[in-house]
């Protein structure tokens, strides 16, 4: 056996269950891969060898004692640094929370631990998840494993890069406006935003409470589904009042298309597929996706999402308002950085001025303005109206198909500093924010490398609300078709990192 980066989550779990590998061996190899690779990448803000080895030892002890193993027993995973895990620091990529020790563990993380997964550490992100490039991390950006001069995307850039570079088998991200799907696309891995209310947000440091979802990043659709099963299969979380009781068998539709009772119907939205600013490589990836889905027996139906163009404006209004509110608690009184001053008001101002980076300040100022009594009706109320229209559009469209095919990102990975204009950066969320507004599940599926850029390209599939299992089934069909056509691994580890460290015992 070679490197840990060759194994899927399903592969690790079965190798450990069969006794071919011990969990400690896998954890040790994963930690070794991180130490060999992460200096170039900076995917991790904190690596937790003690927690990893302790969790791995517990798995091995259970196996030795003949006790049942969890479905992810021994699978190494990385955690975005906005998810709380006791024994780690949770900084959200911000000076404001530098050195902040978690006081409790997020439900999503504890469910992964309960499934036997092994925590490797916390991954880099745009500060408080405000960004699409990881450049807004206060602790320096993460690099794209396919081209170190380029961004990994964001805000879950560290998690996407860690999986793409073989520094983790699975990773948890959070997606408020595309923060899982866009970096997954730029790094060539699978990234899924589940339906709103599927995964508990308890312990996820909130950005936009009505938009945030925790979700998996993985190298195969099946791994993503296994991860989601661990995250949400246990049902709603009594600690998160927004979790729902929707069906939770996420592995139900992963089998070959021949098993499906009816051929797939895929929705095509010209407004999205021919959008301005969509680059040639992404366009060709989408037409490739159409072909391989057709090969899998899918039929296509043309649809419209008439309010799609208003999504970005509505999203930035709502997300900024919620961010303003959620980040108000960072005042330096109870936790995090504090800059002293003679009065409380001054202390609050100075602490926040020093603790937050430019993008975090911009979003909060925007939110504070939009929620002010003068602006509320004009912007916030209007944005909520658009939000309802977008949800109605998606619901109507998805009553006619199994999934909508769309881009995840308008471009492949871009260079550092290339998008310094925030409005241009916001525009890259065009294809992703609609699902956050409407609550629909969506997944980015990697489709190899673009012929012009040589960088990962992808397609996004959007599913009906609370039918995440069906969406995963469509994603599996796309992945299967792509694999057959390219005779390649679904999501290969970036070559520059493949096999560097992480060797497993023979």
């Amino acid at each position, binding site marked *: 056996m070679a490197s840990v980066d060759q194994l899927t989550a399903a592969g690790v779990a079965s190798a450990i269950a069969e006794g071919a590998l011990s969990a400690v061996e896998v954890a040790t190899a994963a930690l070794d891969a991180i130490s060999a690779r992460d200096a170039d990448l900076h995917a991790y803000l904190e690596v937790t060898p003690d927690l990893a080895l302790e969790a791995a030892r517990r798995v091995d002890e259970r196996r030795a004692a003949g006790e049942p193993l969890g479905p992810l027993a021994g699978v190494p995973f990385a955690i975005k640094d*906005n*998810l*709380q895990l006791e024994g780690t620091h949770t900084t959200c990529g911000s000076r404001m*929370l530098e050195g902040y020790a978690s006081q409790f563990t997020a439900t999503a993380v504890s469910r992964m631990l309960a499934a036997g997964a092994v925590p490797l550490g916390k991954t880099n992100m745009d500060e408080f998840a405000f960004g699409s490039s990881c450049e807004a991390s206060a602790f320096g950006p993460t690099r794209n494993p396919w081209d170190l001069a380029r961004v990994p995307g964001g805000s879950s850039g560290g998690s996407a890069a860690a999986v793409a570079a073989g520094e983790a088998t699975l990773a948890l991200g959070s997606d408020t406006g595309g923060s899982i799907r866009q970096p997954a696309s730029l790094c060539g891995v699978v990234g899924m935003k589940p339906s709103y209310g599927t995964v508990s947000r308890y312990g996820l440091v*909130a950005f936009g409470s009505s938009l945030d979802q925790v979700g998996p990043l993985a190298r195969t659709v099946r791994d993503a589904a296994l991860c989601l099963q661990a995250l949400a299969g246990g049902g709603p979380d009594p600690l*998160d009042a*927004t979790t729902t009781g929707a069906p939770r068998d996420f592995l139900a539709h992963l089998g070959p298309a021949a098993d499906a009772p009816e051929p797939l119907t895929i929705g095509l939205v010209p407004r999205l597929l021919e959008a301005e600013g969509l680059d040639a490589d992404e366009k060709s990836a989408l037409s490739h996706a159409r072909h391989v889905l057709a090969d899998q027996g899918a039929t296509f139906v043309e649809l419209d999402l008439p309010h799609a163009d208003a999504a970005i404006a509505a999203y930035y209004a709502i997300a900024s308002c919620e961010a303003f*509110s959620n980040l*108000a608690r960072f005042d330096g009184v109870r936790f995090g950085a504090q800059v002293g001053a003679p009065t409380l008001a001054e202390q609050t101002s100075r602490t926040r001025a020093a603790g937050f980076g430019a993008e975090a300040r911009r979003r909060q100022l925007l939110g504070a303005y939009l*929620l002010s009594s003068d602006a509320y009706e004009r912007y916030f109320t209007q944005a909520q109206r658009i939000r309802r229209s977008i949800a109605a559009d998606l619901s109507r469209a998805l009553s006619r198909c199994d999934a909508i095919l769309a881009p995840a990102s308008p471009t492949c990975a871009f260079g550092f500093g290339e998008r310094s204009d925030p409005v241009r950066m916001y525009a890259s969320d065009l294809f992703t924010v609609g699902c956050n507004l409407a609550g629909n599940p969506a997944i980015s599926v990697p489709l190899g490398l673009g012929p012009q850029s040589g960088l990962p390209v992808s397609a996004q599939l959007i599913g009906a609300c609370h039918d995440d299992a069906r969406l995963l089934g469509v994603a599996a069909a796309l992945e299967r078709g792509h694999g057959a056509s390219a005779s390649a691994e679904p999501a290969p580890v970036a070559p520059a990192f493949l096999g560097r460290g992480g060797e497993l015992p023979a």
Partner: protein
Amino acid sequence: MSERIQDILSRWQASIGLEVHVELTSLETKLLCGCTLSRNAEPNTHVCPVCLGLPGALPVANREAVLAVARTGLALGCAVERRSTFWRKHYFYPDMAKNFQTTQGPVAICMGGSVEVELDAETARERPDAPTLRPAPDGGYVTRIRIRRIHLEEDAAKMVHVGGAEGRIAGATHSLIDYNRAGTPLMELVCEPDLRTPAEARRLVEHLRQTLLALGVSDCSLEAGSLRVDANVSLARAHAPELGTKCEMKNLNSLKSLHDALAFEVRRQAALLDAGKAVRQQTRHWEPTSRRTIALRTKEAFDDYRLFPDPDLPPILISDDVVERLRASLPELPAEKSARYVSQLGLRRREARMIAADPALASLFEAALAVTPETPATPEAPATPARDLATTVANVIVNLRPAHGCLAAAQVRSIAQLLHDEALTFAQARDVIDAVAPTGEDPARYVDAHGLRQNSDREELASVVDDVLARSEDQVAQYRAGNTKVVGHLIGQCMREAGAAGNPKLFSALLRERLDAQGA
């Protein structure tokens, strides 16, 4: 002396509104987390990630708190909204862990109710239009106060300022924060400015307090802060189309403070208006020691709390079934109870109202009437029907509270029976009660054991009276000459003769009977 309120109110109409905050102390846990409610616990021992506002923590609404507010609304004639939402109200202050308060927006759990309160004849003088209002039985009047809304919100943490005078923030070197109180479920009731006098405001708070106690949603302690009252008042000419400029006073922590602060404000504002000056819209603080209000801050502009619906909390949905179930579970409210005591049990209004107002007294009263007497009734000594004892039982409960401990229902019943049978004087009853309240002993047994039972045998006492009269010629002559006070001396003689166990009332009656007959 300053001008009387009633004279001012003959020139100016006061419009008084109240905001009443009630901690739902009867609940077990906080509004948004599972921490237990505590009042005197060590600081910061009843806290968790949610009520500390730690990053990543999420709120989950306490269902019981929602139901308590809905029940209160039903008791106060409000409509229970089938769908309402929690909102976030933002302001930066360390007593609010998240820097926003979870409260409700334009639609509260309860909207638009009203209550009727009764004012007595004395306070009727303060209200020039009292004769036009519905009269109350004792010469007072009844007025109706509209309730705008009742909503649910979380309480703030408690801050303790150290180093300044009297714990004030001015001059303090540092402040300590106790988050035990943070997240305590708080019900806020807002009434329309329908109150016209400070006495009405006090009466309304009394009425609300009694209703909430009967509902069992809170201990309603003004001193401990589980019931807090903010009052606002403005003056305008009667029938003016608009209200005047109002001032608000926060945290009036006693009924007296509420009344006196409003009375002060009425005088202060009237003096300004009479002098042709304007009232400035202010938040003012009542200082009980100097008996005046001082300006805390002047509202130049509207505070922008950036309210918006809380995305972490799903809408509060209350079905028709739940509303009907809550309505059916409402207890008899103090006003109804008091009316029943008067009409069915013959209590006087004063005792009826006092007992009905206090759930502990009311349950003691009803339990005492329900007690089955220990000695079985015989044809010679039939048990007194409970209804005939009701006024005596009420009298014992209201007027004979023990110095220590409290009486059990059976003890109350027994004392009442002794009084009813004239086996005990009222003065003796007080001593007996003080003796048996801490021990739980049966009063009848105590009375017998200590030889206190009064002799009310008419024939025995009559012979004593005859003996005393026979040897008191001087006093008899004085009585006949018109000095009826000598009866007191004669009663004393009879008591001495009978060895203290004679019934003085009966002696008195027998003496007068004979003296008046002989004199005729």
